[in-house]
């Protein structure tokens, strides 16, 4: 893990205050995952707070070229986060990368530029954060494959943290999927702009998942899981999808 991704501002004693930004997709589509992410953070000694008034990081618009729309939405979230303390932990590599890397660009020359820089520097991807903390003994039984979400992997360089976390779970058998690092085809608006291509990409990935014969497909990004889970559901596959945070929450004592 890069040194810059390490949380700072550790409290001298007691619990570490952290801000958990659940992301819009998490808030609206998978609130359970956000709750699970919070539970795990609490279990590793954090004092978790949700930012009041935060909405979305603006990525869908940013990636489609609608910077004004992206800035307008991101500003709301940025200002909400600027009022919080401690690391901003994000259970999505994609939103994390938007906030950590692209907000500086989006707010360049803007009145909120300084705030964007300050908040960006506090952003940490959830698994990278948790992997640096002490967790209680974890136990969970099953055969698990991990799918690397693209932006967490290639923009935030989070590769080992989720694998380290999964490997620490007693009873869990971690299987490397052949194309773990290849995009699943979600890609935000790409998934609805070009649904045929997006689903073809999912099928290519899911063929490798089937070959790995896993019970559960885990990832660190809700978007990938919504897409892959939706395709697995449509094709009647018995493979479950689970956010890493949910799996670890289930594995807590």
């Amino acid at each position, binding site marked *: 893990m890069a040194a810059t991704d390490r949380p700072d501002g550790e409290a001298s004693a007691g619990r570490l205050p952290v801000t958990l930004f659940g992301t*819009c997709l998490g*808030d*609206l*589509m998978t*609130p*359970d995952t956000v709750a699970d992410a919070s539970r795990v953070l609490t279990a590793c000694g954090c004092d978790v707070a949700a930012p*009041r*008034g*935060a*909405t*979305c990081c603006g990525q*869908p*618009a940013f*990636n*489609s*070229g*609608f910077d*004004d*729309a*992206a800035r*307008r*939405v991101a*500003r*709301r979230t940025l200002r*909400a986060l600027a009022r919080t303390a401690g690391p901003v932990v994000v259970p999505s590599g994609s939103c994390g990368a938007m906030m950590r890397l692209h907000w500086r660009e989006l707010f360049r020359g803007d009145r909120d530029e300084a705030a964007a820089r300050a908040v960006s520097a506090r952003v940490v991807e959830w698994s990278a954060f948790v992997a640096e903390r002490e967790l209680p003994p974890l136990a969970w039984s099953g055969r698990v494959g991990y799918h690397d979400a*693209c*932006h967490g992997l*290639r*923009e935030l360089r989070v590769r080992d943290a989720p694998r380290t976390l999964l490997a620490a779970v007693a009873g869990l058998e971690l299987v490397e999927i052949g194309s773990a*690092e*290849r*995009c699943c*085809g*979600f*890609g*935000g608006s*790409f*998934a*609805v*702009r*070009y*649904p*045929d*291509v*997006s*689903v*073809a*990409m*999912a099928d*290519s990935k899911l063929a490798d998942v089937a070959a790995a014969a896993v019970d559960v497909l885990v990832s660190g990004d809700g978007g990938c899981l*919504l*897409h892959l*889970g*939706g*395709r*697995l*559901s*449509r094709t009647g596959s018995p493979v*479950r999808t689970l956010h890493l945070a*949910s799996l670890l929450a289930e594995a807590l004592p």
Partner: protein
Amino acid sequence: MSGDHLTGTTFEGRAAEQLAKPFQRKAIPAAVDGTVAHSRALFATGDRERLRELGRDIRAHAVANLPEYVAAFTDAAEANGTRVHFAGDATEANAIVAGICRDAGAQLIVKSKSMLTEEIELNPALEAAGFEVVETDLGEYVVQIANDRPSHIIGPIIHKTRGEVRELFSAIAGRDLGDDPRALTAFAREQLRDVFLRADVGITGGNFAVAESGSVVLVTNEGNARLATSLPRVHIALVGVERLLPRTADLSVLIPLLVASGTGQQLTTYLSIASGPRREGEPDGPDEMHVVLVDGGRSAILGTGYQDILNCIRCGACQNVCPVYRQVGGHAYGWVYGGPIGAVLTPLFKPSAEGLEVAHASSLCAACDDVCPVKIPLHDLLVDLRRDRVGRRIPGRFERLAYGAWSRAWSSPLLYRLSGRVGIASLRLLARGGVVRRGLGPLRRWTRDRDLLLPGRRRR
């Protein structure tokens, strides 16, 4: 057949056509996975990052200083006895080549693979001028006979089965050649060898042009470029003006980057450095060498935010790792280049609404950034192109209104919460057991082949 296939079509439509080809969807990964693995293994034996930084800096330096290096190249090439021509656009490039062929009294022209000549549509132009042009790279030969287009920078016919090649070649042979690639290749060799021995002009591209020596550098595996520069009376090399390198020594960085990224080889079988026509005492070689430096839209990119794309050395590595390219192949991109490099170049060279749309033919997974041997930030350039597309008000009314309304609602925590609740509640009306199988409106595009799993309904 070349040219662009953008007008009146969409990426979605072109992709659907390609997705319906089951052979291609299996053939592309089968063809490129070996290259990717070999490439990775080769780079693992050295300091890949440092090498890429050197490659990027050499290319970026050359592209930023083209006036100096074009002048130096021209002087050095002319000192070698090469004639250098300057083509502002495709029409001019084609006219220059046709003029050289006419002056040489040529009839038969052999060509080795060149993406630039695909860009400028040289073959149809020469044919219209009355010349017979024969492509000599095996893949390009098949493409030419089939009146098709190459679908990959390095492997032009990775979309074709041996059965298709058998049909094409058997028709020429007048007998069934079977589908053993060995026999098919032998047939092509025999046909093309005869053409090489008779040809008046050999046309090649140029992987690089070296300013200090006035040389054109060619890498191939089959040996056709070498033959094309050896046997005909006239050699014409068409080189994109951005492909200049300052020094011969720069090849010690860029050749390993190009070859390992493009084919996964230590070195291609043939690496030729052509520095002019046959000299006194040399037993063979052309009487004339011409280099046509082609601008063709490149100078317009200089000085813009897209200048880095001119650092590209056309290795095809970004295509090989692109998850979109792997599904749809090169033709879906609608012009000469497929994959991430095509998604950037097509909007820049064909800036119509249809051309600009191609910037969206990427899930922005950034796999291309990681393999680019000269570290072009393809992912960022794609986002920049999408921004330009919005700036030019090309997205449809619906898309613009949707983002506008979305941004107004979600910049208010209250409206965000409200719209979320209303949204989820309406989805529940469509759902059975927490799963939406048939959405309405824009959601239909999600649920055509996927379910939408609603909150609280986790797949267990």
